[in-house]
């Protein structure tokens, strides 16, 4: 049984077709990268999987449960977690409280009480090196620190599918490499499937993802294992860049 099955999903905004009849699957523990030029519909796709808004057509099935009409919070309970491109921590709450909120209301939330969630948060704080900021209000952190909190909070939700929206935008290459290593560890240890959306950071894509889904103007262009996708002429044409070469030079 695939973890997530997206079937013929379409989303329109007025006259614009943002996501055009897309179908794909994600398997347990797999890492999929969704890439594509600006305006390809990636964020919309994420929002659809997450339940931020409903699809106009099509179905979404998560572990055999039809979540097509579920609001985001119910999908979170089933095991879908998410980080946002621009981090959205709960500003007045401390780092610890932020992460604990993920634990309290996420997939394991019903078995976890407030104190247990706070302890769980401590575990992630140590893991991600956020200890000096533990009791600071999340709003006062630097963007990179906020990103770490964002990821920790999503992880605390104990997701089985983690949607990471441009998690590495704005990072320098060294940090990206460290983050890739870190995510691989988490993924393997906690057995999460990750869907990463990275725009032009091929380093991360190549390092992390086994499969790549390339979107273009709302539709699925290719859905192939990473190496194939990155050297697929269709993909190169759409990007007007040279992903394969970039890898060779990296």
């Amino acid at each position: 049984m695939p973890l997530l099955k997206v079937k013929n999903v379409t989303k329109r905004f007025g006259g614009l077709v943002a996501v055009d009849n897309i179908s794909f699957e994600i398997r347990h523990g797999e890492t999929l990268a969704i890439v594509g030029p600006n305006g390809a519909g990636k964020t919309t796709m994420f929002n659809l999987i997450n339940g931020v808004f409903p699809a106009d057509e099509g179905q979404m099935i998560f572990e055999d449960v039809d979540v097509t009409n579920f609001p985001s919070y119910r999908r979170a309970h089933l095991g879908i977690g998410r980080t946002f491109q621009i981090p959205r921590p709960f500003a007045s709450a401390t780092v610890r409280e932020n992460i604990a909120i993920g634990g309290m209301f996420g997939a394991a939330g019903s078995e976890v009480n407030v104190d247990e969630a706070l302890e769980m948060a401590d575990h992630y704080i140590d893991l991600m090196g956020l200890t000096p900021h533990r009791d600071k209000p999340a709003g006062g952190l630097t963007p990179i620190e906020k990103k770490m909190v964002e990821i920790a909070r999503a992880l605390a939700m104990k997701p089985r599918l983690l949607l990471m929206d441009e998690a590495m935008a704005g990072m320098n290459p060294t940090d990206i490499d460290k983050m890739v290593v870190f995510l691989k560890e988490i993924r393997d240890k906690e057995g999460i499937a990750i869907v990463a959306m990275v725009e032009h950071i091929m380093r991360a894509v190549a390092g992390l993802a086994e499969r790549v889904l390339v979107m273009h103007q709302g539709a699925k262009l290719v859905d192939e294992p990473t190496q194939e996708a990155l050297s697929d002429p269709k993909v190169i044409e759409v990007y007007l860049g040279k992903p394969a070469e970039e890898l060779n030079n990296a």
Partner: protein
Amino acid sequence: MRQLQKFSPILPVILAYGVLLGIGLAYPGKWQLIAQLAFYCALGQAFNLFMGMTGYVDFGYVAFVGVGTYGMAVSIYYLYDKGLGLGLVLIGLVLAAVFSTGLSLAVGAVALRLRGAYFAIATIGVNEGFRYLVEGARIWNGADGMIFSRHLRKAVGRETAMALSTQWADIVVFGVAVLAAVLTLVYMRNKVGYALTALREDEDAAKVMGINVTKYKIIAFITSAVLAGLLGASAWALKLTYVYPEDVFQIHYTVEAIIIVLLGGAGTLLGPIVGALIYGFSKYFLAIVLPGFQLLIFAPVIIVIIVLFPEGTVGIFKKKIRGTALEKFII
């Protein structure tokens, strides 16, 4: 021990109310002022539970106080000759809670699905709407209101009625204030509080984190409404022994509630108490010096607070004491 520590912030609250009550009992001449301050504390704590914790403004809030007033009034007016004695007051409180729950569910069913500005719009007419329903359909004597001092005297005897309308109504107000504070702290220390903080800061992110925002908004809304109802039942119905729709649905009480919560610090536990004391004292002295000017002075204060000091008195204080021992008690 851990459990006790969690609830240590209730200590300053108990202290504050204890001192207030003590002063009132020691100086009977000042009881009116103390009672008024207690009223503002209760109003503030109750309102804070919703507006402070969710960030939504309910402009029709006074409707819940009004409907609670009617709860007590109805009990006394219609049941005075059933030989229930003081049980009448208890039934009045229960009815107040029931009425306010009913109204909050009716309004909430529509309003709580709406976001910020639309929610405010939905609530802007609640107090007017309900008042005109009562007057228009001549419910409970419509615009003529109810006077039930005679009924109360017949039910419990002259002396008890006197005691109820003076000391005891105000003691109940203290009780409502303490209850509101306790509930606020209980919510803050449980999932409810965290959910409310999250949805106040960023409602969409909260949903994505698995929070059923509507459920928690409703919980806060109804709790806040019931407390308002109990306040109306005691501070207005029991104390005055009459009720008129044009009195109990006046928007200026909502304005006062907003001032109190903002002055003290929205979303904090002690904020409403501090705000109530500042506002209550100021109003008291203004009434002597410049009667009729209170709102004119305080309305710009609201704007100044929102622009310059949105976190209010206690909010600012909390920042200053971060890292000290006081942190555990002042929230």
